[in-house]
């Protein structure tokens, strides 16, 4: 009992082959699109890798890039095959390759689906990575003289300006870390020394933020020092002053940005997956109907196409048996200590004299 059997006339088969040829070429284009989406995501992640802690998030764009390349190759081959399938004679060339090709494409389509799902699951890894990365970056903001960390100040400033955010969760994060290097603190000044002594870890903490936290929408010049001290500035109340600094945290800003990108990419990959699945189904029908035509012998006759020759369970059972026999052939029979020469009945024919005529059977008396 075949799965989804459809009868094809000759013209229908030709039409199917032509349509599949065009669809395969469109799939090559979608493969290129997948490749470029993967490259784009890789570039975007690399742009801000200084702010991300070491997490394995590069596997998503790498997966997309490889899937895109494989899609181009598979669909290019598929296009050539479908182009030849219009002519039954040319189909003979591809007959042996068709089934392996379809199996490969099936697994590849599964990989596309996995790629799409990965785009949605990357969110959590990214969340962790950004939280850690931003904390580190802010801690080493002042270390512009330490190789390996000297670029972090610029990276954080550019991030806060571009994404209009301040700190990890909010601007108050800056109050808990020392972001002014000791190189620029006047240790002979009593205030500086007092502040350093009042802190348990000897850090110079203040209620100030870097200039990159300043909000350009503010009607007044930016207040970055003594933010929580209302009396330090004229006509200022830090509780009501909402436009002075960026209120959003950079962790949320970056996460939203990357989640947006990955959701759009994930959607595109899902659509590509559906498209590839439909092309695969068409190629399977074409393959089975052409094979049946060859079996009938008449190239102009009708033939049946199907997805699976027998029901799903039977096909699974048959395949399992095939796999079992394959593995059995590879096992040496260890029943007789592994010696293949023991207990084999001789199959050599008895030699019955020079004329080699077997003796006549003596009839048994009844």
């Amino acid at each position: 009992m075949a799965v989804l059997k459809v009868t094809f006339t000759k013209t229908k088969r030709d039409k199917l082959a032509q349509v599949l040829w065009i669809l395969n070429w469109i799939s090559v284009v979608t493969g290129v699109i997948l490749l470029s989406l993967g490259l784009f995501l890789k570039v975007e992640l690399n742009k801000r890798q200084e702010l991300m802690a070491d997490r394995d998030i590069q596997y998503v764009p790498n997966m997309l890039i490889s899937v895109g390349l494989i899609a181009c190759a598979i669909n290019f081959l598929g296009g050539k095959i479908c182009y030849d399938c219009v002519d039954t004679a040319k189909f003979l060339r591809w007959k042996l390759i068709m089934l392996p090709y379809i199996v490969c494409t099936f697994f590849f389509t599964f990989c596309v689906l996995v790629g799409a799902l990965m785009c949605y699951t990357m969110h959590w890894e990214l969340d962790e990575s950004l939280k850690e990365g931003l904390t580190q970056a802010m801690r080493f903001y002042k270390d512009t003289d330490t190789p390996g960390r000297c670029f972090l100040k610029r990276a954080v400033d550019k991030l806060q300006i571009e994404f209009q955010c301040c700190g990890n969760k909010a601007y108050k994060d800056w109050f808990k870390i020392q972001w002014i290097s000791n190189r620029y603190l006047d240790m002979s000044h009593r205030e500086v020394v007092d502040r350093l002594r009042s802190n348990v870890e000897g850090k110079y903490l203040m209620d100030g933020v870097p200039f990159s936290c300043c909000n350009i929408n503010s009607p007044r010049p930016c207040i970055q020092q003594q933010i929580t001290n209302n009396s330090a500035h004229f006509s200022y109340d830090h509780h009501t002053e909402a436009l002075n600094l960026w209120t959003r945290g950079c962790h949320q800003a970056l996460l939203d940005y990357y989640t947006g990108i990955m959701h759009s990419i994930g959607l595109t990959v899902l659509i590509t997956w559906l498209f590839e699945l439909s092309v695969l189904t068409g190629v399977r029908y074409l393959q089975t109907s052409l094979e049946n035509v060859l079996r009938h012998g008449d190239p102009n006759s009708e033939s049946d196409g199907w997805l699976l020759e027998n029901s799903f369970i039977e096909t699974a059972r048959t395949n399992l048996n095939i796999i079992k026999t394959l593995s059995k052939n590879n096992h040496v029979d260890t029943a007789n200590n592994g010696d293949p020469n023991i207990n084999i009945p001789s199959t050599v024919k008895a030699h019955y004299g020079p004329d080699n005529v077997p003796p006549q059977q003596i009839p048994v008396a009844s």
Partner: protein
Amino acid sequence: MAVCKVTFSKAEREKLAEILCLLNWVSVVTGAALFWVGLFLKVEIQKWQEVMSDQGVLHVPHMLIATGLAACCINFLGGKICLDCADPNKFLRWKLVMMPYVACTFFFTFCVLVGALLCYSVGGQLQESLFLGLRHAMRHYKDTDTPGRCYLKKTLDLLQIQFQCCGNTGYRDWFQVQWISNRYLDMSSSSVLERLRSNVEGKYLLDGVPFSCCSTFSPRPCIQHQVSNSSAHFNYDARSQQQNLWEGGCRQALLDHYTGIMQSMGVAVLLIWLFELLVLTGVRFLQTAMENVLLLGDPDSESVGWILENSLAETARSNVKIIKSLGKCYQVDDDPNLNVSTEPGGG
């Protein structure tokens, strides 16, 4: 003595018509490209129009947009004409339109050239416009409560951050402008009053700059106040600055930005102009060849095509005469009813 006379066989004429049809369609695409180039330039200029004192520089993108649209129409018509020109019978339909069409296309091609040259000539006007515009914007940076000027602070901050520049020619321009509004100055403070009094015009000037002048390349936290006072900050040299603030002025930064855009556009427009000229020459040859075929009477014979029938000087002279006679026709010769001799009639 015709200018650039070329003999065309029937096959050559048909080939020319086909090629010109194709080239005209390509020209429609380049016309659309010209339109988009003009539109892009317009959007770019309008992004920063608040720091320009006059919008005179907008005539460049407007010219490019108009020329692009005209190119699309003219070349679309040209494509249809050339498609028909392969067949002398169909050519009869277009015979009367061809000469005006070629003349129009010639003037249009001249407009494209003018557009290309304009792209290179706006430098001086733009410089002046930016100088005045930036000065105005800096002066009204503090007026975030005045309608019509409240956006200038945000625009200037964005400009300085994006183009990595500070002030008009340099950061010292901010020292001559009051950029902190009186609303945020504590008039009860003696230091504030002293500073206001020490200035002739009563402006609160200080050697400080807005936060948007801070350079992201600086190794130390930004110093925006008392910038020229070395002793106000630890380990700070006011003269060397050490990448504390953006070095360049915004006028030069914007000028470089727009000059770069318009130079690349100018090259593209020049290439389009050369292409249009080529198409025009081909259409002219096709027109004269087809007209000569009709004059000869035999559609399969060879014919001669040229750019001008007589030499350039003779053509100019005859055109001027035509214009003069046209002018004479419109002049009424006094009263046409006076001094007309009547036949002695019967009474």
